């Protein structure tokens, strides 16, 4: 069973056009900045927002195809959704929240109750079975929301920012549990998030969406090592340059860099901030890429200082605060920059 979708939705200023294919047992994270259309994508898959163009197929079942006039309503799709603010029904006891989907799909009262309690047990929340949701903490509510969705035994599980409403400590625990539950889940799972760490821990594959379009799709390690968008590079805290390669020579805007390996044509160049060395005077020795520039901005992040370098190549270097003092660097001062050729990661655009 495969989720196979081309989701085209025009909604206000959003023009979403995303292709997504998720296989059984696969967990795909859709990662992107706010307003990229991630939530709309999930809503379209769930049937809450109809497609403008495209098609959504779950296994052999076409659930939305405007060209064919097919639109299966949410309640008749083999999907379940976990919402950002959990949306547990406030008037129902916790166990009845979990049993809700089963009851709606025609399971008898006693059987639904029994299965709901099994889920509560699995989530370690049996003690709260008869409480109302407002008695739960954020993490507990998230677990119940997940159990409520999984209890219906969906073929497609959709999760909209499931961790964003949690505080940092709870988040670590719930993230780990979520990963375990998703690994055990046999169907297709799509999780929407703007947090790369959540995505990396929970998902097998990342789909990066920006302004309604997929900018990258690949395994977590590949996407993070070789980002194809400024959004991912910023999230990873690394420098991403677009360049044109001519052998080992890389032209970046007006400047040139030298790489260790030869490439041809349009390429991306990744430079780790820690691979950039700063000097007070022109360094002698091996580095192939040396230039001088102005320091635009300085930020202290944890025990590292991030130094934003100006033209000709806008990069962010990371040094220790001690080095900063030693080099006498401040905003507006000149500095020498050196990057080894072997530290440039070059791949085709």
């Amino acid at each position: 069973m495969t989720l196979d979708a081309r989701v085209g939705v025009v909604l206000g200023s959003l023009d979403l056009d995303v292709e997504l294919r998720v296989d059984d047992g696969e967990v795909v994270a859709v990662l992107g900045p706010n307003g990229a259309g991630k939530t709309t994508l999930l809503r379209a898959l769930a049937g809450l927002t109809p497609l403008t163009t495209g098609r959504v197929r779950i296994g052999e079942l076409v659930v939305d195809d405007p060209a064919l006039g097919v639109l299966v309503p949410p309640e008749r799709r083999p999907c379940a959704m976990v919402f950002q603010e959990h949306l547990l029904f406030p008037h129902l006891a916790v166990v009845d929240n979990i049993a809700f989907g089963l009851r709606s799909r025609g399971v008898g009262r006693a059987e639904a109750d029994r299965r709901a309690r099994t889920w509560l047990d699995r989530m370690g929340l049996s003690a709260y079975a008869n409480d109302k949701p407002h008695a739960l903490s954020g993490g507990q509510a998230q677990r119940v929301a997940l159990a409520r969705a999984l209890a219906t035994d969906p073929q497609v599980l959709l999760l909209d920012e499931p961790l964003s409403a949690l505080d940092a400590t709870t988040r670590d625990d719930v993230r780990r549990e979520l990963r375990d539950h998703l690994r055990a889940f046999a169907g297709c799972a799509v999780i929407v998030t703007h947090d790369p760490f959540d995505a990396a821990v929970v998902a097998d594959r990342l789909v990066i969406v920006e302004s309604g379009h997929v900018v990258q799709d690949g395994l977590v390690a590949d996407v993070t090592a070789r980002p194809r968008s400024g959004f991912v590079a910023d999230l990873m805290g690394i420098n991403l340059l677009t360049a044109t390669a001519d052998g080992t020579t890389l032209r970046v805007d007006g400047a040139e860099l030298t790489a260790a390996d030869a490439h041809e044509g349009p390429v991306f160049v990744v430079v780790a901030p820690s691979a950039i060395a700063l000097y007070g005077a022109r360094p002698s020795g091996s580095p192939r890429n040396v230039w001088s520039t102005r320091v635009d901005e300085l930020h202290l992040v944890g025990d590292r200082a991030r130094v934003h370098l100006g033209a000709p190549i806008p990069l962010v270097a990371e040094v220790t605060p001690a080095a900063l003092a030693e080099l006498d660097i401040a905003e507006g001062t000149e500095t020498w920059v050196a990057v080894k050729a072997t530290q440039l990661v070059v791949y085709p655009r």
Partner: protein
Amino acid sequence: MAVAAAVTVAFLAVPVFALITKASWGTLWGDLSTPEARSALRLSLVCSLWATALSIVFGVPLAWMLARSRMPARNLVRALVILPMVLPPVVGGVALLLGFGRRGLIGGWLYDLDGIQLTFSTAGAVLAETFVAMPFLVITVEAGLRSMDRRYEEAASTLGAGRWTVFRRVTVPMILPSLVAGAALTWARALGEFGATITFAGSIQGRTETLPLAVYLQLEGHQDVAVALSLLLLAVSLAVLVSLRGRWLGMSPSG
């Protein structure tokens, strides 16, 4: 400003105060136990509860349509719903007479069909009360539906609940406070209905003579009974007001 406000408060308070102090408290129970008072009391309860029930059964679907659907001429329909709230009740009674009276638009047809006559019957009293009181239910429930977080309904539908299940298990429980408030206001309004009832249904003891009608009729000759019944209606009004204080007086029920 303070003086003007004080005058206004006094203006509002004096009649209520007079009603309470002028009542002959010693004979109150006896006044309320006269056959006419008891029959009016029983009839009023029956009619107002029927009117409330009818308002819920027919008013909630209308409120849902007004709040949720893209029904045509929605504002016109809403204006029609609110009209009985601002219409002088006696005019409502005349309109009912022309519509559902024995020679009315629908009433004449009903009479020819099966000899059904709404005027001068308890059913007529119920109809008049419903006509005047239903807007309170529709407007309150519509407001509740509009302010409800619809994502809960969406969550229910993704869990496999069809529209009717969503309505029954999610929508209604979540707007229950509005529904209860609307029903209480409707009931209070129906209980106090006078103009439309006396115009459309007349005042026949035991059949259409509800409490307010009894108050009016007893005022000549049996003023004590009229005052006692008035006190009863005042108490009911206060009880509704107190139970809805969070909604109407800008206070939370706990504070």
